[in-house]
């Protein structure tokens, strides 16, 4: 099937919505989605702004042409190009041969408003943004005009633009008519079976609008609170409040910064007071819309206010979607260490809208991939291979691939949580990479690697230790390193190994003086063992320095 499908190439100026439109178009058509800029950055191993800064535009354009050739060699893809890609005649022709080229346009005012800060947009560096936009538009007008279809996106929603393109493609028999799909209906659901604490995890695109319907049968009171961070509030919160209002739920919106240092007891006390001020009662729902910090802090507050309020998790970051939102671990940090105070408290429902991931900052997204790799590495060799085979789609945030990836990661995590809700046994496998990871975060005062990056290094250390013990093939360590690297994650220790050892000894996973480590017998097969000597760990750390 895929073999006969011509590519759909979206081009046009920055901020016209190429990626958002492309992702939805791909999921509706059952195509793969590829984001050219993301692939370029992955190939170069650095962000595009850094390629510009260190190697100049010419080097960037050369790399871009190589990647154009690569995507043009594939079929059945929706490709979002960079804003300047088709200015190069050769690129345009290559792309036209591989499929249908669609230009998205918008008027300069709309563009300037949407662009915002220009740090990550090297083409706009160094000049008055408005003037620069006008100039670039003028330069590129001719190239953009050579597309097969031009759509003005200024006054249209993403869905309207998608429909416009689909109609055009059907008219020209590029795709079959009636290929439009109901996005929320594509959602998949997963049930965590934990007796009276069982709950559903709904995973799919375009689910935020469905929350009001999804919570109808949970027996919730009509008033509650929505805890979120400023950015997610701006992107999704206000809409969610309206969706809930339409479903007759009044929620007060409470913002907390999505920062690890905010996940402390002062912020918790503040949140309790907000809950008291809003007179929450026992059935009042707490909606946690955001990343890990939001979910764990709001989750712990929900777990302990009035001895437990119904909690609905709406994770917006990858790490929250595949890890922290399911399984019921909630908590806060003490000055002595992370997550030292907490609870096991299951949510009543998890709504995972993978489209929220499209807005995620690149580094954040990659950090989430570390947890995905972790889950595959401890439990599922096949899933690990799937990730190895779909690096480009994953990095481009293809929605179908994201649904599959999030679903599989959640399934594995769910099966582990079901087997061991209170972490007495197999659930500790999920700590793979975390013993060193936490120590690394602490040793760098939480200002160095983010959690995912620290876990990536931690996994490499733990696997090195496993190879050292002769229990894991060296080849599996190489595969782990290669996949982490392909996802732009670090695999070497940025600090002095002695520092890490010092912090490891504080870790709460130390049971009666024993340091427990999750090790690998190979990709997909984890086990727990006690550290024989600290020297054993030091050797592994040194090998990864």
């Amino acid at each position, binding site marked *: 099937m895929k073999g006969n499908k011509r590519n759909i190439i979206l081009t046009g100026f920055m901020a016209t919505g190429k990626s958002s439109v492309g992702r939805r178009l791909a999921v509706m058509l059952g195509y793969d989605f590829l984001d050219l800029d993301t692939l370029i950055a992955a190939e170069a191993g650095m962000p595009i702004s850094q390629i510009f800064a260190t190697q100049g535009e010419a080097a960037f354009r050369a790399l871009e042409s190589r990647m154009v050739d690569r995507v043009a060699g594939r079929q059945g893809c929706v490709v979002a190009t960079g804003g300047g890609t088709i200015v190069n005649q050769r690129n345009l022709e290559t792309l036209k041969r591989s499929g249908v080229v669609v230009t998205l346009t918008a008027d300069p005012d709309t563009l300037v408003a949407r662009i915002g800060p220009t740090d990550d947009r090297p083409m706009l560096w160094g000049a008055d943004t408005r003037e620069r936009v006008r100039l670039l538009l003028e330069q590129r007008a001719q190239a953009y005009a050579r597309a097969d279809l031009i759509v003005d996106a200024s006054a249209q929603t993403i869905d309207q633009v998608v429909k416009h393109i689909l109609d055009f493609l059907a008219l020209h028999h590029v795709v079959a008519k009636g290929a439009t799909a109901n996005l929320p209906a594509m959602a998949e659901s997963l049930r965590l079976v934990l007796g009276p604490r069982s709950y559903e995890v709904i995973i799919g695109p375009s689910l935020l609008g469905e929350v009001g319907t999804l919570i109808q049968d949970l027996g919730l009171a009509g008033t509650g609170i929505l805890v979120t961070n400023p950015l997610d509030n701006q992107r999704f919160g206000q809409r969610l409040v309206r969706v809930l209002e339409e479903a007759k739920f009044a929620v007060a919106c409470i913002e907390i910064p999505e920062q690890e240092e905010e996940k402390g007891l002062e912020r918790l006390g503040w949140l309790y007071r907000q809950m008291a*001020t809003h007179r929450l009662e026992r059935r009042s729902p707490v909606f946690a819309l955001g990343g890990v910090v939001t979910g764990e802090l709001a989750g712990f507050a929900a777990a302990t206010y009035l*001895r437990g309020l119904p909690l609905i998790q709406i994770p917006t970051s990858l790490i929250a979607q595949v890890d922290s939102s399911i399984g019921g671990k909630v908590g806060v940090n*003490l000055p002595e260490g992370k997550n030292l105070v907490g609870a096991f408290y299951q949510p009543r429902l998890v709504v995972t809208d993978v489209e929220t991931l499209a807005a995620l900052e690149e580094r954040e997204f990659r950090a989430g991939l570390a947890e995905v790799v972790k889950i595959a590495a401890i439990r599922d060799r096949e899933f690990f291979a799937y990730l190895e085979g779909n690096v480009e789609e994953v990095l481009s945030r293809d929605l179908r691939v994201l649904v599959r990836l999030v679903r599989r990661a959640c399934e594995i995590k769910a099966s582990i949580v079901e087997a061991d809700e209170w972490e007495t046994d197999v659930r500790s496998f999920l700590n793979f990479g975390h013993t060193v990871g936490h120590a690394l975060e602490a040793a760098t005062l939480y200002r160095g690697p983010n959690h995912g990056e620290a876990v990536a290094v931690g996994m490499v250390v733990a696997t090195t230790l496993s190879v050292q013990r002769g229990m894991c093939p060296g080849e599996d360590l190489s595969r782990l390193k290669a996949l982490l690297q392909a996802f732009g994650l670090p695999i070497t220790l940025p600090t002095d190994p002695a520092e890490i050892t010092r912090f490891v000894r504080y870790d709460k996973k130390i049971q*009666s003086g024993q340091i427990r480590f999750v090790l690998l017998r190979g990709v997909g097969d984890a086990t727990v063992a006690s550290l024989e000597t600290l020297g054993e760990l030091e050797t592994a750390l040194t090998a990864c320095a």
Partner: protein
Amino acid sequence: MDTIRVNLGNRGYDIHIGSDLITQVGDLVQPLSLGRHLGLVTHPALAEPYGSVVADSLRRAGHEVSLLTVPPGEESKSLEEAVRLSRALVRARLDRGSALIGLGGGVIGDLSGFVAATLYRGIPFINLPTTLLAQVDSSVGGKTGVNLPEGKNLVGAFHQPHLVVADVLTLRTLPEREFRSGLVEVVKHGMIADPVLFQRLEEQADGILARDPGTLQEIVRRSCAIKARVVEADEREAGLRAMLNFGHTVGHAVEAALGYGAITHGEAVAHGMLVAAALSVRRGLCPEADAVRLRRLLTRFGLPGVPLPSPESLETYMVSDKKARDGVLQFVLTRGVGSVTFAPVFDRDELRLALQDVRR
């Protein structure tokens, strides 16, 4: 020593009741296979001799013990104090296999229970209640928590202890007023579910007031057994557990009207039980003779001890009670000694008349 088993599946636990048990805590915890390092939380005034006795017993059994104290009083039941304790326990190197032991009254039990519920996402908790109220009430049921400036017990968790050891000898040093206030909950348990307990209280009043260990052991045992059965049937306080609120609707209003500190919780609940009984008699639910028995028994114990405030001053506090649904007060009424029923009270005049009955 008597032992009551609280059957809550894999969260089930034993309550040991007897004399001179705190010297044997080390042996009593052996079947629990706790980690080596234990935290012990108490008040400075209880640290000697009780705290040392407990710590010595545990050390003889091979445990390392970190003793921490918190100031007495309801103000210690705060988030700040819970945080201070948690941090101190982390710094003392307690780990996930460690257990926390609370030695004291309701404040220690609620506070250290909450710390145990949340430190490392929950570690085993052992309660050594030293007040009558804690022995018969707060140590059974797994409710833990702290207060916020906005209200009492707003933050908390259900965390069942691994073991409760009630040493009735510790009751001998309890101040008289606190001891008598604790008796109110015992009377309550007799009223709601155990006519035999009620009768024992009537017959053994002298022995109880003299704090005879054998007599105390029996009434604590019977009282704990009732609370345990109610908790087993309704761990998460969904319904049946509400019967334990007998006397509390008016009791809370009395506490609030007089100001916390002016009257003990027990004294306020004594008023509440009398009002609930008067209401029940007016409705023809309860024989007048049983209401008289209740009043006589309480009087024998010197309760309530503080006069009942006027109906007018109580009314505003009752409507704001969290158990008031849509302004209708939910009452636990009595059908006579040993039996209760639930009923809404719509009619403010009816309540006023019952309050006047009690004031007379």
